[in-house]
């Protein structure tokens, strides 16, 4: 499958003459040269792909370059070097006019602090991207009302942003970004400014919308719990580099380095790991229990069964074929022995 949006070897350096500096080092300057010449690296050597319908979460602490990277993907920030491919076309080589067209029809973005226009009502805010395209008022307002209903703000269309709560304001931000029915959806820490309870509610809302809409999503967060809740895959960034890209499960079971391992340490692993990732593939010689679990089951959901059974449980795929076994010891490993997994 071709990536919907991808970037290759993207660099963003701040300093006197970043292009010249990169060229002088053949596009890959060592760290001490960057620091020595007074350049600040926001993004280094970043490559990633987002496939159609996928949620890629870009995760990192503040200053890790995740916001800069996502802005490079939408060309809100001009990368110093690299390629950004949108449907196979290089965004960075695109003339301004075409870029505006792509933004008007194919991209939507949600911002951390909502970025609503304070002088416009909810309706006018949501209709704004349609308005700048020159769509007539009747059509755009009808479309905007549909999206407002979709995000659960029906009846609030005449309100001004300051008359709404934070969660409601972000619903407006989401509605605005969806108004043009974009293919690609960028969300820059959309729930970070909200209370924990509201954040949870908005995450559910987001997942609900995504099940309906199947957008291609780049979602930024600094919250690892949020990342594993929402992500199909996670890209972890540190000091401008992408340290590791993988499914939440991969990150937990096979962290690329200590930095990643640090994030994954406190994760409720039993909720994340599937039976497939902890089972033993060879079943030779063992007498298995009659009870069967599937490889896609989360460990947390079947833990009781496994622990209550004297013998290891049989793991069977959809066709009923035995593909492995899972024992009490495995479950206890998941629940308690972090180190064992980290080195597995």
């Amino acid at each position, binding site marked *: 499958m071709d990536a919907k949006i991808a970037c290759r070897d993207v660099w963003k350096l701040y300093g006197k003459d970043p292009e010249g500096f990169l060229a002088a080092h053949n596009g890959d300057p060592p760290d001490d040269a960057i620091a020595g010449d007074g350049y600040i690296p926001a993004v280094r050597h970043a490559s990633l792909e987002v496939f159609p319908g996928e949620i890629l979460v870009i995760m990192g602490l503040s200053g890790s370059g995740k916001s800069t990277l996502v*802005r490079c993907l*939408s060309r*809100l920030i001009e990368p110093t070097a690299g390629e950004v491919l949108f449907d196979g076309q290089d965004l960075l080589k695109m003339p301004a006019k075409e870029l*505006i*067209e792509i*933004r*008007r*029809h194919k*991209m*939507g*973005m949600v*911002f*951390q*602090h*909502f*970025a*609503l*226009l*304070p*002088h*416009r*009502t909810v309706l006018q805010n949501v209709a*704004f*991207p349609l*308005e*700048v*395209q020159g769509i007539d008022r009747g059509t755009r307002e009808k479309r905007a009302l549909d999206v407002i209903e979709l995000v659960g703000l029906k009846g609030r269309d*005449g*309100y*001004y942003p*300051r*008359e709404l709560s934070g969660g409601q304001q972000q619903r407006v931000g989401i509605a*605005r*970004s969806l108004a043009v029915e974009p293919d690609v959806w*960028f969300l820059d820490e959309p729930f970070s400014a909200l209370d924990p309870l509201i954040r949870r509610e908005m995450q559910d809302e987001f997942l609900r919308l995504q099940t309906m809409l199947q957008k291609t999503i780049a979602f930024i967060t600094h919250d690892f719990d949020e990342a594993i809740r929402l992500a199909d895959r996670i890209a972890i960034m540190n000091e401008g580099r992408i340290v590791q890209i993988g499914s939440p499960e991969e990150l937990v079971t096979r962290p690329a380095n200590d930095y990643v391992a640090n994030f994954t340490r406190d994760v409720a692993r039993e909720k994340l790991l599937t039976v497939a990732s902890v089972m033993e593939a060879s079943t030779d010689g063992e007498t298995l229990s009659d009870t069967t679990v599937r490889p896609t089951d989360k460990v947390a959901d079947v833990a009781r069964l496994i622990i209550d059974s004297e013998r290891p449980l049989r793991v069977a795929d959809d066709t009923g074929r035995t593909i492995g076994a899972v024992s009490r010891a495995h479950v206890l490993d998941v629940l308690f022995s972090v180190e064992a997994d980290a080195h597995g």
Partner: protein
Amino acid sequence: MADAAVLGGAVPVRRWVAGSGQSGLRVAVLLLAPFVFVLAVSPWLPDWLRMVPKDWSAPFVGWINAVVEVLRREEIFGLLTFRDITRAIADLIDYPLDFVEAILVAGFSDSVPGLPWIAVTGLAIVLGWYLQGRQLGIVAGICFAYMAIFGKWELSMVTLSVVLVAAPIAGAIGVALGVLAYKRRWFETLLWPILNVMQALPHFSYMIPVAIFIGIGHKAGTIATIIFAFPVMARLTILGLKGVSPEVREAGIMAGCTKRQMLWKVELPAARPTLMVGVNQIIMLCLAMVVLASFVGAKGLGHDLLNRLRSLWIGQALEIGVVIVFMAIILDRLSQAWAEKEPEHAREGPFHVRHPFATAGIAVVVISYVLAAFIPALQLWPKSLSVTTAPMWDAMIDAIVVHAFDYLELIKDTLLVHVLIPMRDLYLLLPWSALLVFAVTLGWYYGGWQVAVIQALFALYLAFAGFWERTLITAYMVSFAVIVCVIIGSIVGVWAAAGPRRTKVVELILDTFQTFPSFIYLIPAIMLFNVNDFAAIMAIVIYATIPTTRLTIFGLRTVPHDIVEAAIASGCTPRQVLWKVRMPLAFPAIMLGINQTIMYALFMVVIAAFIGTTDLGQEIFRSKAENDAGKSLVVGLCVAFMGLMADQLINAWARERKKVLGLE
């Protein structure tokens, strides 16, 4: 140190200073040493390094007048002179001016009268109610009714019409320049220093060039007002646009805005709060200027006030002063309420439900016209029914003079003889080279060599513009007044910052006082002390104390709570909390207040020349009488540069101080 590059050679010196426990003393010694040295050796210096020789002045005045002459006489493309063009443009201003005046009071013809006074008053009530609430509506109603009942209706409406015409034009010019500066970097670098100088130029410096290119009269006053008021809007537009949150801008880009859509649909609306601060300021500046513009023939309240003051009819002058004050208060409150008004979702229903205030406004106008057709007193308040307060004011002043004359004279004479005159003589003795060295030292220490060079250029200009002695006299009056202002301001500020109730009361008083046009402050000074240096200083003090007080309160009240709590928890007495914690942290803010106080004082000192001083202001007045545009500009720049020197030094100092305290 982040700006080591800027400070350059000053850095090692600063390290040396910082390395000592008593750094305050060392700094003082270091900064004063060069000045004292020049002072000490001055008896051996050649004369020209002490006093500027009379025949050495740079012929700035002549140059400017030569340019003016060319612009007046020479024809461009053999068709029109520059003056013809400016006059033609100025004539355009007559249309909106006549139109607004006709609506407000004059009427379009005998058969189509202007708005009856009850209509204007009613509209003011509706507007106040709409913008903020019933209370403001009532205040607006009282202010306007006062103008009518006390017989100042026509004068007030003429003044108001100038404000209503000048403010939007000045605002539009300001926004346009601001947008251009925001879009084009080179234009900003060009515009910013010009704005700085324009905002530091005293009111009168604008008037003579305007008088020369446009002539004397009502529209010249209006043009001077526009020119005086637009810089603040340009500045706030730039600040507002730069302050738009990057996310909002990105949201605009992601929606696919073109550059033009970005500006009009995203950036300008998002900058609204800052722009509205500009609207309020521009309205107040217009009012202040239109009162003063009576000097070049603007009609209205200022014109009558000027005449009364010239004839020393203090009671009548006070009466007009009160009307101006009312006008200032209501314009300020209304424009602030407008700035603070947040949009609200509209109710559903027919027109009068969706737009209740528009409906009320229309009703007021219709009903007023109908009533006024039958009752003429509602069209224009009859002279015979007008109340005058002048005799009351006169009686009050008489009483003060009779009972307090001796004391006032005593205070005045003591100060004049023992403080003011010796201080002036001392200033006049100071060699210009010593002052130059002093300014350069301060500039170098706090801002690096660039600031030092600018300080030197300003100081050289002051020395060789041909008005050195007047500059010193101005400096003496301003510095004395500023010292008094700082003493009063910081005491009142400390007192007011001690509790939220006090703060509220004092801030209300300050807000109100600040809205008054500066001209007003001459009235009590003349009333009590007649015409002399002392009265001038008193007028300056009343006017210029405001910013120091305001920023002292602000500085003290914005000290972070946890720091104060930490101090209390460490066992500080309230006095120790104030002196050891709050004052040091508030000091940068207080210094910025003093900076503004200096600016205010310089503005006022020029206006105060009206009551007879011998400083630069007097020269500006003289140049006005002689229609000498060159001189008025050169002298105006003297005042402006004095202000800018202080401004630059204090700002450089405050920036560093804030950085040290982590208050940025």
